[in-house]
């Protein structure tokens, strides 16, 4: 019955709130720090336009010559076009966050139902979908994402879709393995024995118990999606110049490197790193909290 326990502990730990997390050792702290980073990043991006000292896309807010290093007026320096890096940092997270959110959403919409159905239905459907998913899973993710993004063209939605294609198999595999375990558990059998319909069993009895694992996969995938989105931007498949985006700044900053303009890449790079790190911490923390382990 370990899966039932997972569910109970999941609820038990999260309904009372974060405070109880502090008692969960390093995993709890990881979750707290991670969600702190993520929340502040999201908050910053949402509120950024109100707080940024300049319009992040305005040209030459700093008088030439540009790029200029950090100074009093421009604490993070300016880029080649004389745009204020601080403003761009404050507002630049939206693309990454949108892409990550959308891709996780797409994964959820595709991966979970397919996983549920395949594992529940079994037989040929299961075997074929597993084979398809496995071939995607074994494939180098970024290569596939790049190829698909290249075919579909630019834009946030297209980026999210191409990333989703790469990560759907993780959801599928997770859901499938969980369902296969839960399907055999006595209470599911009991539900079936008392005449519950397949649909009811799937939605009422199985799905709720899969949710914690999906949450873990999703948080871990957030980090991967952000890094993949940054990678897509770096190979020239990001969004255009008129949206402030850390990935774009980092990409364009590369040509300014030889002249020693470190500030142009350092700050956006650190922001992406922090965002990905936040999600990684939450993901790792949660997976440790929600997965029963041998206590040492």
């Amino acid at each position, binding site marked *: 019955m370990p899966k039932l326990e997972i569910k109970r502990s999941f609820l038990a730990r999260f309904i009372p709130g974060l405070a109880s997390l502090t008692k969960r050792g390093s995993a709890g702290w990881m979750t707290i720090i991670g969600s702190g980073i993520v929340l502040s990043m999201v908050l910053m991006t949402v509120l950024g336009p109100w707080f940024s000292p300049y319009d992040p*896309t305005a040209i*030459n807010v700093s008088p030439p010559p540009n*790029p200029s290093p950090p100074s009093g007026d421009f604490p993070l320096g300016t880029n*080649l076009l004389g745009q204020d890096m601080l403003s761009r940092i404050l507002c630049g997270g939206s693309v990454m966050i949108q892409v990550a959110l959308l891709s996780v959403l797409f994964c959820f919409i595709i991966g979970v139902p397919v996983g549920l159905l395949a594992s529940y239905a079994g037989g040929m459907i299961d075997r074929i979908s597993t084979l398809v998913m496995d071939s995607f899973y074994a494939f180098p993710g970024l290569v596939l994402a790049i190829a698909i993004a290249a075919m579909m063209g*630019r834009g946030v939605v297209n980026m999210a879709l191409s990333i989703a294609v790469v990560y759907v198999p993780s959801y599928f595999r997770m859901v499938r393995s969980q369902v296969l375990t839960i399907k055999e558990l006595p209470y599911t059998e009991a539900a079936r024995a008392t005449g519950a319909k397949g649909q009811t069993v799937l939605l009422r009895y199985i799905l709720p118990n899969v949710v914690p694992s999906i949450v873990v996969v999703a948080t871990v995938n957030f980090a991967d999606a952000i890094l993949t989105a940054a990678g897509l931007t770096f190979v020239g498949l990001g969004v*255009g*110049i008129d949206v402030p985006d850390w990935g774009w700044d980092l990409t364009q900053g*590369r*040509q300014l490197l*030889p002249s020693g303009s470190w500030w142009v890449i350092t700050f956006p790079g650190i922001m992406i790193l922090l965002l990905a790190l936040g999600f990684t911490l939450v993901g790792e923390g949660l997976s440790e909290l929600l997965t029963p382990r041998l206590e040492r």
Partner: protein
Amino acid sequence: MKKVKNSRKAVSTTMAIVAIVIIVIVVIAGIYAYQTYLAPPRKELIMGTTDSVESAIDPSRAWDFFGWEIIQNTGCTLVEIKPGSSATAEDFEPALATDWTLSADKITWTFTLREGVEFADGTEFNASHVKYSFDRAMGINHPEGMPLGSEFDTIIDSVEVVSKYVVEFNLVQPFGPFLALLSCQACAIVNPEYAGGWKTDWSEDDVVYYEEGDVRASHTMDLGPYNLVDWTRVAGKDNEMRLEANPNYWNRDADGGLPKTEVVIIKFYADATALRLAIEAGDIDVAFRHISATDIEDLQDDPDVKVWEGVGAAIQYMIFQEDPVGTLPQLNNAKIRRALTACLNRSEVCSTVFLNQMSPLYSILPDGMLGHTEAFAELGDANLTYAISELADLGYSETNKLEIELYYESSGHYPSSAEQAAVYKSQFEASGVVDVTLKSLDWPSYREARSEGTMHIYLYGWYPDYIDPDNYAFLYYAVWLNHHYIENGEHYAEMKAAYDDARASSVESERIDLYAEIDDYAVMDCPVVPIWQGAAWAVTKPNIKGVYLDITQTWRIWLLYEES
């Protein structure tokens, strides 16, 4: 006792590993020092570039900058333009032709050829090779060749062998810039042995492309200052080229001997950053195309390198698509185009994006070219009062903004396209009555969108094939640009007449007036708006001499040398 022994043994094992590592390092360092010491001083000149031959260095097909540079250095044309000149009529020098005359009706050009010039296999160059080269180019007529290259037949009617050393070109109509045309790389003389053999029926399949492992079979020319003796490509891009002096070069004995450097290695870098760091580190002697604006600015203060600036023939312009497939008919109104043009601030683009390494351009003809004017200055730079009032006439205001889409190319085909577009957007929007949406496409899609005519406003660029105003002024008429003004432009009939006259004329003063007229009409219509003119940049070690960066855009490797 035993314990001590154990630990001693452990220590000795660690020591042995450390000793082995140290010995290996010392040995490698020793051999390194020895081999470095023994290495003979390098005789080759190494040039670095980020360019690459696109697909072929066959004059019948190549239409890319670097392919032409290699053609120029390995092949030879009938006439050449004097290095460092501005390509006026007096600047054409004999090359494979020693003398030429034009008939009174301006239709027939007769060339006397240089005698005793030999191909690498010892065959003597003669009039039949000239006829062969042009017949081949016109026969292959490759749609992807240079625009006029593919339309040789609209200029040249036939090439006739008069005698062994005399050849005659019969034109379709009088053509002023004919010598300029003959001096361009598409007119390099090919060696029939490597160009498909003596025959008359030509097709696209006869183009000579790169062949892995066999350099000589990969190009057709034979008479230039250099022989291409090694050419490696990795994954469809150039990796390294080796040029060795051609012992049969006709001009070998000229002042001090040409080429000046016996062996030149061309090393290809993936991007400007790598190229800049290579020249800085001294890995290469010469860096030519492309080093980014910030890097040029940076290197100008570096005492270990020399930065050369020259006239650039590359121009960037903005095209207002006439009737962009059903979306913005307003652009058909010349008043809107003029208003938008007035919003532009050319010097701001040049200073912001290019750190003043490009210069504002107010005529379709670049500065340094016959017929260059300042016509577009009439509309001014950031002339917002004019723009706002013109647009107000048409009902556009801060509440009813003119909405336009500005396209840029995103895969690096033009320098800093995205940054430029961001600047133009801010300039248009500074008027307060224009709302710009930026859109980007990679180069192939951009090119196709251009052919389809779906982009409202987009950026385009040009560098010349042959060095003559004719090769710029035609941009107003280039069918492949597909901006449609040719049929519908208000002043296009007058412009076209002036253009045709200028083309046929060989009298410079006459042509200057005609091109000025064309520019004036262009300002009235604003179909194609010049923005900036590029400068040419090269970075070398301080002791490299013989760099010519002139309007011809020809990179004359044969004149480069290292001063000891």
